[in-house]
């Protein structure tokens, strides 16, 4: 599809020893918190990488660093072999056109003051993307195309976000992401805010898009079941470090690290509590190592 066919050998993203700390000037003086602590990660073209972890594990920070929205405190980030962590915003044209993001909360990811048509075509009007060959020129035509692709009526373009349901709004966000024909799609908890029934529709949409546009997908979520369905690789994160990563079936079947095991065990399973079995505890071990339960990052 895209003219410069990405060489399968070169990784899409490469993170080497990436750390990120935040300086807080609260009344308790300068407090330094580490969100990322020496992360090494490689994302191959066509790969569907899931990043799981609990709140405060640093997964959202990691993808913001990958997408160059946030500079790392130390370490290197490469996109298709070229360093982007120290590049000026103008040199990021390639990254900006090839990588697009979808966010969690449909109420916050769409500008309430813009029509759906303007929201979706906004990336096409970006100065970095406008002049690139791989970005569609005819906005009107592309708008119709993507609306159809995300199963929304064509006349939706003229309406405003508050006229749509949560599920429909997330489709609009996805349409915005695929409008400039990116190669990589990053989803940050893209279905967590949706009702269960709507979640299925959106996940199916993701699966179709990845297949039809041969996209590389990075899917961040706290919901292990969703990740298992959508991704082929997974990285488990905790307190800013990647605890374990690899093919999803292997990690889910026989997790090497105890934290991953606990994580998998904690997912509530549909079970039947007979009157007598009231006392059978779920498989959750009593003594959990401290960690995700300490005060908020």
């Amino acid at each position, binding site marked *: 599809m895209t003219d410069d066919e990405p060489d399968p050998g070169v990784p899409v993203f490469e993170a080497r020893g990436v750390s990120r700390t*935040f300086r*807080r*000037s*609260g*009344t*308790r*003086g300068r*407090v330094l*918190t580490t*969100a990322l602590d020496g992360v090494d990660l490689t994302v191959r073209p066509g790969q569907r990488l899931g990043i799981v972890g609990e709140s405060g594990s640093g997964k959202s920070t990691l993808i913001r660093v990958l997408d160059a929205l*946030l500079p790392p405190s130390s370490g290197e980030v490469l996109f298709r072999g070229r360093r982007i962590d120290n590049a000026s915003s103008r040199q990021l044209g390639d990254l900006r056109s090839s990588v697009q993001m979808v966010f969690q909360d449909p109420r916050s990811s769409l500008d309430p003051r813009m029509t759906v048509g303007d929201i979706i075509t906004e990336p096409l009007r970006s100065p970095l993307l406008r002049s690139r060959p791989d970005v569609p020129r005819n906005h009107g035509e592309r708008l119709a195309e993507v609306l159809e692709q995300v199963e929304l009526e064509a006349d939706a373009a003229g309406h405003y976000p508050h006229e749509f349901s949560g599920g429909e709004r997330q489709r609009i966000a996805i349409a915005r992401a695929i409008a400039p024909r990116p190669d990589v799609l990053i989803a940050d908890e893209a279905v967590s805010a949706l009702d269960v029934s709507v979640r299925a529709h959106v996940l199916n949409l993701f699966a179709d898009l990845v297949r039809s546009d041969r996209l590389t997908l990075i899917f961040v979520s706290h919901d292990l079941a969703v990740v298992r369905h959508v991704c082929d690789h997974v990285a488990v994160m905790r307190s800013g470090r990647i605890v374990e990563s690899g093919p999803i079936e292997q990690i889910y079947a026989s997790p090497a690290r105890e934290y991953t095991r606990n994580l998998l065990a904690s997912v509530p399973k549909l079970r039947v509590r007979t009157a007598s079995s009231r006392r059978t505890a779920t498989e959750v071990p009593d003594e959990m190592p401290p960690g995700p339960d300490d005060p908020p*990052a």
Partner: protein
Amino acid sequence: MRALGAIARQLLSLAGSLLIASFIVFALINALPGDVAATILGPNSDPASIAALRERMGLDRPLLLRYVEWLGGLLTGQPGSSALSGAPIGSIIGPKLAVTAWLATLSMLMGVVLAVPTGLYSAVRRKRADGVIISGLTQVAMAVPHFLVGLVLMIVFAVTLRWLPANGYTPLTSNPLQWLRHLVLPVAAIAVVEAAMLIRYVRSAFIDVLNEDYFRTARAVGWRFVPAVIRHGLRNASLEVITVAGLQLASLFVGSIVVENVFLLPGLGSQLLTAVNQRDLPVVQAIVMIFVAIVLVINTVVDICYHLLDPRVRAQDEETSS
């Protein structure tokens, strides 16, 4: 305690702002055309004697030099003396500052005492008739100029009923009762308008509480509606009151000029007006600097109070995102 770090930082920036403000004040005032020498020597004084007087008063030296000299004097506690009467500025301004300070603080106090209960009442009963009436009256009270309220109060209570003196002032030290009687009307004139503004903030602070999750928790654990509002609303509202009252107190110091004029209180405001008219620059500079300093100091004190009192603000500092 690490909190001192934050306070120290705020005091430092206060000092910075004061310094900048002092230069702006000095430059602005010395740019005023019209000349104190001409005022002293009177209408038909000849230019030569005016120039001589200007030279004697050192008004011709470069601005920066005079600024440094003035700043030095200010920091070492001698703000110089009045160009007109030669009297030391401290003696001129001291009693006047006391009058304005009493006027501003008493009216703010009366404003708060009036505003908090009324704000609570109108918030709690916002759907009912009396709640609506109160907020209606508050709107009207906010729309009337200070001096008009003062004038009406004076005509009714001082001139017609003769209960209280129409104007003038007796220092607290010499006769506390007369001092109080002279301040009742001016303080009431300011307090009515200030209280109206405060009531709106207190009312909205209490209404905000109604939408908070912790208010719903309080209701869920068994608090009746009004006690729940007071128990959890009062603290939230008091934080709101501190900020707003602080800002209002700061602007009140200058705002009282108008009421001083109506009730002939020898405050800083009326002194500033006469000093400006007579181009008595040293006095003008000193008074304006005092007003500026008061506003900046009060703002900083309000910030510090907010920081100390509200644990949430401390939490806000710990927000991670850049």
